[in-house]
């Protein structure tokens, strides 16, 4: 069911704003909206953003260095009052971590720069001249650099006639390391040869001593820096132990950021806010504001023409988990229809049919019960878990009906689909037809509600008459079915083109709309996946059992392996087929069912509330 929304407008004093926003956030019933450019973010919002980024980095760093949280760790509870007091410790920790990670990073950087310098010096390690003595004299100059290996022979040949002395050193990726001395007056000619043979110059680090000594020094210095960084990382591990404090700080900042995101429009002393409130929650909102101040004026009114309120769905506890299936697609538009109550039973049935193994259903039901007890998933994840939980109950039912127990055949209450595929297909198409008809009836309901009775009759009921005719043709003797089908088709042809201009256009339009029958056919055929996916689960389970049986015949070792195969195989089969069953039963809703009537594109109703990532705030 879709909840009607009221638009709230609030006027109050600026000095009360913080208190009001806090109270509204605690209450969690109003979704503030920004009125275009007039709305401004509040003072300090930027700062909170920076702090939040810092806390996030700190948490990332702590995650990297401390021990990982278990996936099933429950959220830590924290009382609302202590949640309000911004954690000083957390803020200090964030600062510390920022400093620490900065230090570690620069130490590691320096160390790696040094190591790469050592690598670059390797070709020159045999040079027996200290670097500081390597300088041009009054009469001579020198060149240091790399010469491609292929050019070496030719180059040495070329400079033989010059007054030059080459020292050939080790090979490097850039070429052969080489040092060439020559008389000053020959320098120009030597340069020419160097250029001709693709010589590249090298720049030595500004250091003194022999290259080999420098390399040793640098290696040592790099080692020391790395050691220091290791020490700091050990310190980080200690900080990581007070991670909970950081997490609390992060959540507090998140809440603060939400609060500051919308300050409304303001004058010198007052401000004005707009928001959406559920029709049945206006009292709570007003009470929350009253708890903060007396000086306010609030007004709730129905949405005006052109205003699109956000969409909020509400259903009973059996149906509401299926809202997650709708959220995965797109929320219904405000003022259309929430199809949950019709979708839920079909999703339930389809999921079970696609898994259709009572043994798997039992395993899933028990497993999910335990998992939900341990983790207590909330919000969207919680709803999704419930959908799969309901689905696994349905799986037990269908598994018992089809006689599937861990791939073994046991007392089918209905029939075994693998042995009677046609019966199974008929069941699938029957359920599919029912599903489609429900969709069309919903559309008809929406049309009638909006006053378009003619449209409901011509575009929906005409088809239903025709389908009823087809059904009668198959099961009821006599010509009743034929006449019904013809009557339905006639209505479609005669009215399908009623929007078109001219008699010819109307006729063509009518004939074309009859062509839609191919669309209905392909929709119906799509339900054959109910059988195919059930088949996949059953046969793969059978394959696993067969392999295990073959292994068991091979003695005790084989039996041990067979147990592993059975366990691993069936778990794998469950996981992959739960994914398949969920995706495909959702798809049947989205494409085949929703295609008939659904109006998507609603915006979510996201009230200002305390949203945490790590903590569980108890009010």
């Amino acid at each position, binding site marked *: 069911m879709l909840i009607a929304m009221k638009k709230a407008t609030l006027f109050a004093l600026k000095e009360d704003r913080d208190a009001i926003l806090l109270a509204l956030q605690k209450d969690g019933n109003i979704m503030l909206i920004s009125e275009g450019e007039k709305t401004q973010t509040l003072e300090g919002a930027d700062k909170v953003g920076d702090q939040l980024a810092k806390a996030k980095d700190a948490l990332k760093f702590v995650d990297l260095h401390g021990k990982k949280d278990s996936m099933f760790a429950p959220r830590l509870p924290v009382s609302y009052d202590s949640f309000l007091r911004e954690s000083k410790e957390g803020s200090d920790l964030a600062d510390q971590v920022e400093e620490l990670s900065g230090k570690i990073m620069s130490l590691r950087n320096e160390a790696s720069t040094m190591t790469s310098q050592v690598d670059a010096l390797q070709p020159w390690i045999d040079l027996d001249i200290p670097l500081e003595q390597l300088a041009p004299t009054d009469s001579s100059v020198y060149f240091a650099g790399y010469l491609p290996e292929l050019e070496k022979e030719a180059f040495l040949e070329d400079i033989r006639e010059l007054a030059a002395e080459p020292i050939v050193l080790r090979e490097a990726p850039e070429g052969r390391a080489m040092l060439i001395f020559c008389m000053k007056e020959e320098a120009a000619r030597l340069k020419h040869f160097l250029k001709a043979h693709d010589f590249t110059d090298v720049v030595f680090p500004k250091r003194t001593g022999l290259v080999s000594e420098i390399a040793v020094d640098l290696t040592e210095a790099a080692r020391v820096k790395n050691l220091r960084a290791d020490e700091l990382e050990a310190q980080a591990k200690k900080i990581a132990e007070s991670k909970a404090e950081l997490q609390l700080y992060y959540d507090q900042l998140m809440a603060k950021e939400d609060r500051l995101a919308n300050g409304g429009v303001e004058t010198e002393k007052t401000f004005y806010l707009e928001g959406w409130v559920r029709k049945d929650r206006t009292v709570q909102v007003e009470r929350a504001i009253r708890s903060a101040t007396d000086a306010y004026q609030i007004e709730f009114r129905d949405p005006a023409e052109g205003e699109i309120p956000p969409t909020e769905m509400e259903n009973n506890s059996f149906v509401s988990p299926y809202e997650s299936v709708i959220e*995965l*697609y797109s929320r219904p538009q405000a003022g259309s229809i929430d199809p949950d109550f019709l979708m839920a039973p079909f999703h339930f049935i389809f999921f079970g049919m696609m898994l259709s193994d009572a043994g798997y259903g039992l395993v899933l039901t028990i497993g999910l019960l335990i998992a939900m007890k341990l983790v207590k998933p909330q919000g969207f994840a919680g709803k999704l878990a419930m959908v799969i939980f309901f689905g696994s109950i349905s799986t037990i039912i269908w598994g018992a009906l089809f006689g599937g127990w861990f791939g073994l055949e046991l007392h089918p209450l209905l029939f075994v689909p693998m042995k009677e*595929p046609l019966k199974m297909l008929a069941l699938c198409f029957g359920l599919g037809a029912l599903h489609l008809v429900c969709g069309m009836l919903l559309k008809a309901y929406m049309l009638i509600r909006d006053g378009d009775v003619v449209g409901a009759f011509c575009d929906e009921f005409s088809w239903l008459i025709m389908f009823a005719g087809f059904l009668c043709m198959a099961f009821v003797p006599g010509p009743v079915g034929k006449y019904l089908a013809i009557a339905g088709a006639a209505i479609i042809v005669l009215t399908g083109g009623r929007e078109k201009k001219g008699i010819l256009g109307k006729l063509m339009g009518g004939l074309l709309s009859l062509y839609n029958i191919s669309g209905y056919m392909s929709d119906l*055929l*799509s339900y*054959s*996946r109910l*059988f*195919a*996916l059930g*088949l*996949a689960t059953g*046969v*793969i389970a*059978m*394959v696993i059992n*067969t392999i295990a049986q073959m292994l068991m015949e091979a003695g005790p070792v084989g039996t041990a392996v067979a147990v592993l195969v059975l366990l691993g195989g069936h778990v794998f089969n469950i996981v*992959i087929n739960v*994914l*398949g069953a969920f*995706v*495909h039963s*959702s*798809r049947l809703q*989205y*494409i085949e069912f929703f295609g008939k009537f659904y109006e998507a594109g609603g915006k979510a109703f996201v009230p200002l509330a305390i949203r945490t990532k790590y903590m569980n705030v108890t009010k």
Partner: protein
Amino acid sequence: MITLGTALAFAGAAVAAGFAGVGSAMGVGIAGQAGAGVVSEDPEKFGNVLVLQALPGTQGIYGLLIAFIIVLNLGVIDGSVKDLTTDQGIALFFAGLPMAIGGLMSGIYQGKVAASGIYLCAKRPEETGKGIILAAMVETYAVLSLLISFIMVNGVKL
């Protein structure tokens, strides 16, 4: 002695499992490459990425399923291989073909859609569900291939 018919039936099982397996391997491979890239940026998305990568894996399973039923009907599992006439063998070979071709192509294309879905999940993680549905659209045709292959295999009475 194995008759030509039995050999042809084996060929039917072989193409169904083999080609559908290749399709899945390629599909999962394509999606996996995209997934590794996304995970390198944001390791927290691994769960979502894995689901999307797993989607093109089903064709291989469907192929195995058809091959298994053929082999089961032939009596290979319980150790006494039946002698099939050549006509029966050809029929079983053709029965394996829809799954082979459908599985091969749909696996590859589902992999491509899944890879795009993984990019979608990188940019807008809240919309991962839509990426999954888009990839599942391709799977429809593998499911249809599976169904017709199964009905055909079932129709060959040995």
